[in-house]
C-alpha cells in the first residue's frame, strides 16, 4: 500500500506527513501528524467534533480526504492558543462554563472561530447557526452561545 505525501500549513507552521490511501483528514491529523485536538464522533459529518478550518472555512475533517489539504492552511483547536496565552474564545469558554465533558469543545471552538473571523459582531441567531452542525450531547448549548458572544464582545473591545 502506497502512502501519499501531504505538505500543508498547520496552525501557521509548515507540516508534512504521509497519508494512507483514502484516509480522512481527521485520522491523518491525529495519527500521522499528531494533532489530537480534532475528535472523532461520527465519521459521517453529522456531529462537528472534528471541525477544522481549511483556508479559513470550517470543514469536517472526518469527511475530508486528507490529501486535498495539500498546499492549504489548516487550523485546529490545538493551535488557537499562543503558547500559554489563550485565545479570547478559549477564555470565554472557561469563563462561561461552556464545556462539560469537553469532547465537542474543539469542534465548537473552530466553528466559532470561523464565525468570528467573518463576522465580528454576530447576533445570537448567527452564533446558533454557526454551531448548528456541532452536537453537544451534554446539551450545554446556552453557555456555549453565551461564550461565543462574550468572545465577540472582547474581540471588538480589543480592536
Amino acid at each position: 500500500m502506497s502512502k501519499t505525501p501531504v505538505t500543508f500549513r498547520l496552525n501557521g507552521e509548515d507540516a508534512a506527513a504521509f497519508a494512507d490511501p483514502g484516509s480522512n483528514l481527521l485520522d491523518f491529523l491525529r495519527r500521522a501528524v499528531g494533532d489530537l485536538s480534532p475528535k472523532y464522533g461520527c465519521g459521517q459529518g453529522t456531529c462537528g467534533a472534528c471541525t477544522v478550518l481549511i483556508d479559513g472555512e470550517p470543514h469536517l475533517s472526518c469527511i475530508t480526504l486528507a490529501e486535498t489539504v495539500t498546499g492549504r492552511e489548516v487550523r485546529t483547536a490545538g493551535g488557537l492558543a499562543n503558547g500559554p496565552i489563550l485565545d479570547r474564545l478559549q477564555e470565554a469558554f472557561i469563563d462561561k462554563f461552556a464545556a462539560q465533558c469537553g469532547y465537542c469543545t474543539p469542534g465548537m471552538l473552530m466553528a466559532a472561530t470561523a464565525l468570528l473571523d467573518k463576522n465580528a459582531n454576530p447576533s445570537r441567531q448567527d452564533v446558533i447557526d454557526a454551531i448548528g452542525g456541532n452536537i453537544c450531547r451534554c446539551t450545554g448549548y446556552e453557555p456555549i452561545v453565551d461564550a461565543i458572544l462574550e468572545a465577540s464582545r472582547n474581540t471588538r473591545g480589543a480592536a
Partner: protein
Amino acid sequence: MLRVETYPTAAEAARALGPGARFLGGGSLVMIELNYGASDIERIVRTTDPALKDIRVEAGRIHLGALVTMADVLRSRELSFLAPVAQAVGGPAVRSAASVGGNLFAPHPYGDFTVALLALDAMVQTAGGASHPLEGYLADRSGLVTSVSFAAPASNEFAFRKVRRVRPKGASVMSMACRLSRSAGQLSGVRVAYGAMAPTAVRAKAVEQALEGATLDERGIAPALARATEGLDPPTDALASAWYRKETAPVHLHRLLLGENAR
C-alpha cells in the same frame, strides 16, 4: 487496496471511472462510505478541473459547476434567491464541502438543493458535453456531472420550504420548491418539486396541473392542495411516517405558495 487518482480535467476523470471506482466531489457522501468500510470501492477518482467550480450567468441562464459548494452559493450575489436552499443543507462545515453535483446523489432524506433545481427545470451537463433534463438524469444518474444550468427566475417567482424536526440543522421531513411563472396574470408553466417524499426529488405533477391557469390565492390554489400528494408514495423513516408526510404536505404546500403566514 484503495487508490486515489486525481485528474486535471473532468473529461479524464470521467474516462477513469468504471467498475470499483467512485468519483469524489466534495466528500460529504463518498467519504462516509469509505469511513464505514465500503468494500466495493477500489479507486477514488477526483479532478482538480477549475471549470467545475464556475458560477456563470449568461443570457439569463445560470450555470453552476458541479463542484460549486453550498458555501459558494451563499457567497454569490446572483444566487441570492438560492441562499435559503443552500442554507438548508447541513451546518456551515457541511456547506463548505457539499457540492451542487453531489447533491444530485444525496440519498433520501437529503438532497434539498436538487429539489430547488427540479423546480427550476434545470439541465444537467455531463462530461463529454451531453445535456439532460434533471428529472430524467435522476432516474439513472449515469455520467459524470460537470454542471447544471437553468433560467434565472424572475424576482418572487421562486420559493423554497424545508420542514425539519430540529433547528438550525436537520434532515428533511419534506422539502418543497416552486417556480410560480405567470402568463397574463395567471399561473402558467408552474413547477413544484418535493424532497423526502419519494426515493429521489420528484416533481408534483398533479399540483402543477391544478395550478395551470389558476390565480395565486386561497381559492385558486385549493384544487392544487387537494392533489398535493397525488401519485406519491412517501417513505416512512425515523423522521416521519408516510401517513404524516401525506397529511401535512398540503399544509406546507399552502405556505410555500402563499407565504409562511398565510392561513
